[in-house]
């Protein structure tokens, strides 16, 4: 099995080679994120080194004060005592300001990395084809961009600060200890053995648990979001109680694994304290005998004890953020997987400009299939002259939408080419492509923001008058005026209070404003009432007069404005002709049309 991109993302049983491959790609990603921050990173590193050194100097200065200062002062020599006091103050000042500098710098670096990563994932998500989105599902791509990025944010926010600072602090503390008293350094060295064993035990145990914890939290989130977005159906079908039971189960799973993780900490942290205190006692024994023998100054013993004790201090925090590090690295692995996904509908390397499209569409030897044995559209040729209005009819699953998606370049054909004015869509500059071809689908999605904002999506530079004109052209003006704040009304949360039909009208206005050379309407009027549809059709008469249009509609009313009808069945175009010819004939369309008219009365 492959682990390229997002494949096998949910698996728990990676082989060594696969894990290495995944780790390599996430390290690559990390490297590319860190590179622009190099200068700041060096500065930060310098700040940590100096501030840790300053902090580590403290006990040594106290030792100097006690061992040199007191005897000197007894002889009325102030200098060593004053030096000790001032030096201690200096280390404090230097340490404090460098740490402040470090916190600011690391926040800047962390935030810069985050925004870089957020932007990359966002952009890449938008670039990935619909095919990818349909199989990867929205829930997963959203959690890549929210909870996974949060895990990385948490690490960058505080974890890294503690991790790096703690490590430097330990290195300098150990270094200072070895310098003032190598024997005590030996004690610390011995203490590193149980410390290593304990830490390794913790690491192995926690790794599995953290993984489970992330799976549990992801399930929890999915269930939660789904309930909230489907609240109408939840309440109408009384699934609250069942949901509560199910959600309660997920909450308990998550709680259980969390409790296990915390249980590990409850062993690991006291273990650290025990090792630290034992090391202190050992230092005391070894140092005490030497002080009694006069081989060691009392001040140095104190410093040795302080150093030994302090050495273990940051370990706890570091262990705590080992969790953060774990989830961040696994988040990074998943994100790097998404970023590795090649868009199956890639932007052209050498885009061809098409400033003004005429709207002549050609399908040449086009075939579309998911796999060899799941051919959706067998090879076909089709030529749509500029300005023609084509109705695409046929039963559900006949391949109408697939054909439309090929034309809108939501998909690329498996074989053959789709052209606009003779240019392969794959070569066309994306900007020109999207300006020339617009597809309006049945599910008219509205973004949070005002009605005007939503219409302006068709042409971000549009003036307010243009927006109103577009709304008028599709007959949406009146109902918009009737909304609480007219065009400024907020269309909260998935179109909230705007009805399905009204949403379609807004999305029509959007398309109208975009003014494309080729317009594809996929069931775009299905929720409209008849008067609105009538208005839209009127609007379409003008709208479609000088552009190519492909209209998919179950209701054959659309055929009324078409120049040409294509009847599809099982991926093939079985009839092609003017509406009049087809209705007058004895084919499929004639039968459909007759049946449909019967349904009108």
């Amino acid at each position: 099995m492959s682990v390229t991109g997002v494949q096998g993302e949910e698996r728990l049983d990676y082989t060594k080679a696969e894990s290495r491959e995944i780790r390599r790609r996430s390290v690559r990603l990390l490297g590319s994120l860190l590179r622009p921050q190099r200068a700041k990173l060096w500065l930060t590193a310098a700040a940590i080194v100096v501030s840790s050194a300053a902090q580590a100097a403290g006990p040594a200065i106290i030792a100097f004060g006690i061992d040199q200062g007191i005897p000197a002062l007894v002889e009325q020599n102030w200098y060593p005592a004053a030096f000790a006091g001032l030096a201690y103050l200096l280390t404090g000042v230097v340490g404090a300001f460098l740490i402040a500098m470090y916190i600011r710098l690391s926040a800047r670096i962390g935030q810069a990395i985050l925004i870089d990563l957020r932007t990359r994932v966002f952009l890449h998500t938008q670039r990935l084809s619909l095919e990818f989105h349909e199989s990867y599902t929205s829930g997963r791509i959203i959690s890549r961009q929210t909870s996974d990025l949060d895990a990385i944010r948490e690490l960058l926010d505080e974890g890294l600060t503690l991790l790096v600072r703690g490590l430097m602090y330990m290195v300098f503390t150990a270094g200072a200890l070895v310098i003032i008293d190598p024997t005590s350094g030996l004690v610390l060295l011995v203490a590193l053995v149980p410390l290593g064993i304990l830490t390794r035990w913790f690491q192995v145990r926690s790794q599995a648990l953290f993984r489970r914890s992330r799976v549990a939290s992801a399930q929890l989130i999915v269930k939660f979001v789904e309930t909230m977005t489907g609240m109408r159906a939840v309440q109408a079908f009384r699934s609250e109680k069942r949901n509560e039971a199910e959600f309660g189960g997920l909450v308990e799973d998550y709680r259980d694994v969390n409790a296990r993780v915390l249980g590990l900490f409850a062993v690991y942290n006291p273990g650290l304290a025990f090792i630290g205190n034992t090391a202190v006692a050992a230092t005391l024994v070894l140092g005490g005998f030497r002080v009694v023998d006069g081989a060691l100054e009392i001040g140095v013993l104190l410093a040795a004890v302080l150093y030994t004790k302090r050495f273990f201090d940051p370990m706890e925090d570091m262990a705590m953020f080992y969790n953060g590090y774990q989830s961040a690295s696994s988040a990074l692995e998943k994100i790097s997987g998404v970023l590795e996904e090649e868009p199956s509908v890639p932007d052209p390397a050498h885009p061809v400009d098409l400033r003004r499209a005429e709207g002549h569409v050609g399908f040449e030897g086009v075939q579309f299939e998911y796999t060899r044995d799941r051919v959706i559209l067998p090879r076909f040729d089709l030529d749509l002259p500029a300005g023609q209005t084509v109705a695409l009819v046929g039963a559900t699953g006949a391949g109408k939408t697939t054909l439309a998606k090929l034309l809108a370049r939501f998909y690329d054909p498996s074989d053959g080419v789709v052209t606009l004015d003779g240019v392969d869509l794959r070569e066309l500059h994306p900007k020109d492509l999207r300006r020339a071809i617009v597809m309006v689908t049945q599910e008219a999605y509205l973004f949070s923001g005002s009605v005007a904002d939503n219409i302006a999506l068709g042409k971000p530079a549009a003036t307010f008058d243009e927006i109103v004109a577009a709304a008028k052209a599709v007959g949406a003006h009146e109902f918009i005026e009737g909304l609480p704040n007219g065009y400024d009304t907020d269309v909260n949360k998935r179109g909230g209070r705007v009805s399905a039909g009204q949403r379609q009208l807004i999305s029509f206005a959007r398309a109208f404003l975009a003014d494309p050379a080729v317009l594809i309407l996929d069931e775009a009027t299905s929720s409209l009432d008849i008067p609105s549809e009538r208005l839209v059709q009127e609007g379409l008469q003008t709208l479609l007069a000088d552009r190519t249009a492909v209209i998919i509609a179950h209701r054959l009313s659309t055929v009324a404005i078409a120049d040409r009808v294509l009847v599809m069945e099982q991926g093939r175009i079985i009839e092609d002709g003017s509406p009049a010819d087809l209705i007058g004939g004895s084919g499929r369309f004639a039968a459909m049309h007759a049946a449909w008219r019967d349904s009108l009365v």
Partner: protein
Amino acid sequence: MSAISHHPASDQPRLGTVRSLWRLRLYVGRSTPAFAFSALAALIGQLVALTIPQVLESMVDGPLAGGDPSAVVPFALLVFGLGTVEALMYGLRRWLVVGPGTRVEARMRNALYAKLQDLPVSFHDRWPSGQLLSRAVSDLGLIRRWLSFGLVLTVVNLITIIVGVGILISMNWMLGLVFLVCSLPLWVVGYLFEGRYSEMSRRSQDQAGDLATAVEESVHGIRVLKAFGRGKHALSTFRAQAESLRSTEIAKAKLDANIWVWLILVPAVALSICLGLGIWLAANGVITVGTLVAFFATATVLAWPIESIGFLLAFSLDARTATDRFFEVLDSENEIVDPEAPRVLGEPHGALSFTGVHFRYQDSPDRFDDLLDGVDLDIAPGETMALVGLTGCGKTTLTALTTRLYDVTAGSVTLDGVDVRAFSREELRRHIAMAFEDATLFSASVRENVLLGRPELDGDAAEEVLHEALRIAQAGFVHDLPDGIDTKVGEEGMSLSGGQRQRLALARAVAAKPAVLVLDDPLSALDVATEARVEAELRNVLASTTALIVAHRPSTVMLADRVALLEAGRITAVGTHSELLRESEHYRFVISSLEDEAEARPVQAGAAARPAPADTDGPGPDHHELRAPQTTRGAAS
């Protein structure tokens, strides 16, 4: 696509931090002793840690000064023993709160979820799910950590600092006092820090919630963004939001950096003065070297508690923000609740009546009339009523009133003569089942989705209902899915087309076998052939069931016994399709389709003037007429 924040309750007066956090006691409840014992263990541990320097003092002034090697080992053993106790207490402190801490979190999470499911649809219209999610996950996790560590450590560290400073003063009042006085600025700084950090932390949490909403939209609306090539545009909005979050976070880090300067500088100043002074005192014989050693050892023990105060303060403020956000939801008043003594219907007949029903959305400006402005409509048991009206005239809202997804603002909706508000919501929604136009499927199998309204069924009975419902809704396509009716659909499963989803939603409503079936334009996404088959099957179901069907098409209207016309907030006409066609101009305008005109015109242009609707037999005489522009909007009327 501008960002909007939703903090509907933010105009409430804010409670103080302590009082705000005090509200958590509701969820801590029986676990209180565990937290108290944990604090006690922590306190004992800290105090033991404080006695170690005392042992050091005795050791330095005793055996070390006296040159007695035999006493070194017992002292070291004592230190070892105390150290072991400290470690044990430390472990105990954590062990004790593992269970209770996680259980409080779980309890709060379940309570939040239950409350959110109880709150009416109007609440969810206002609150984006991203905002709710951040409350349910990260806020509650933060509260748990605060209860288990933050709270315990804040209390214990404060006590440790007080006791520690007391010990320092008892060693030598001058040294101790200098240490104490020099540490005082920390509290002032900490206090000033509180207000600003709290505000900023709330802002950053809200901004993160908005950013999550932007991400959700960019994914759910990806077809639109792609169709218009507006990825870049969406990106710039997203970038702007991410940038404002970044500047908040950086401002937060600056505050954080400032407090750290104080936290390190103040003890350093204090200790450097103490060092100079201590050396002087020791040189003059006022204190022993052992005391000086102990002083610094004690000060070292105090270093972490003192430094941690800043972190704990920030932690408590974050926890307070999280608590406020949690209670913001929990305190939301639910306007749609069950009555105290709900009525029970054994076998409902299914008589549904609207009497003087008024409805307006809360945020609707005064200048508008009520959306529903006195609706009167009676649907007899077993009758099928079609509801027809222009887009946006309130049809969907009217259907939502039947199951109390919204409540009427005046008037009443009754089932078998009993006001729907007199039933429990559970009972009411068992009798009335709905299919929505935008069909929501959950991440579960087809079977579970269709049988959503029939949890009591299992075994063969369930299979039977399931297959019948699927047959009626013409949802046979499910058998071709990879795992048949066990295929997972919804957000996390197979993606289905609009028409397929709609058929499953219809099957779900049918499977509920309710007394009243409310269908909101249930066939809009179906192709003509499928629609005809569904209608044929539905006719059998509707023969015995009361139904209210929102209809846009003549074909759907044909399912109904009678049609009600909703116009300007009232029912202006009720009758059969042909009666209304004859009598109501508005009805003709709403329901007569374009094609009738297209068909009618050539005929009318010919010799015989025939009434609309036109003759629909056979192809029209002149097919080019089909393409003639229809510019006269009211031609049918």
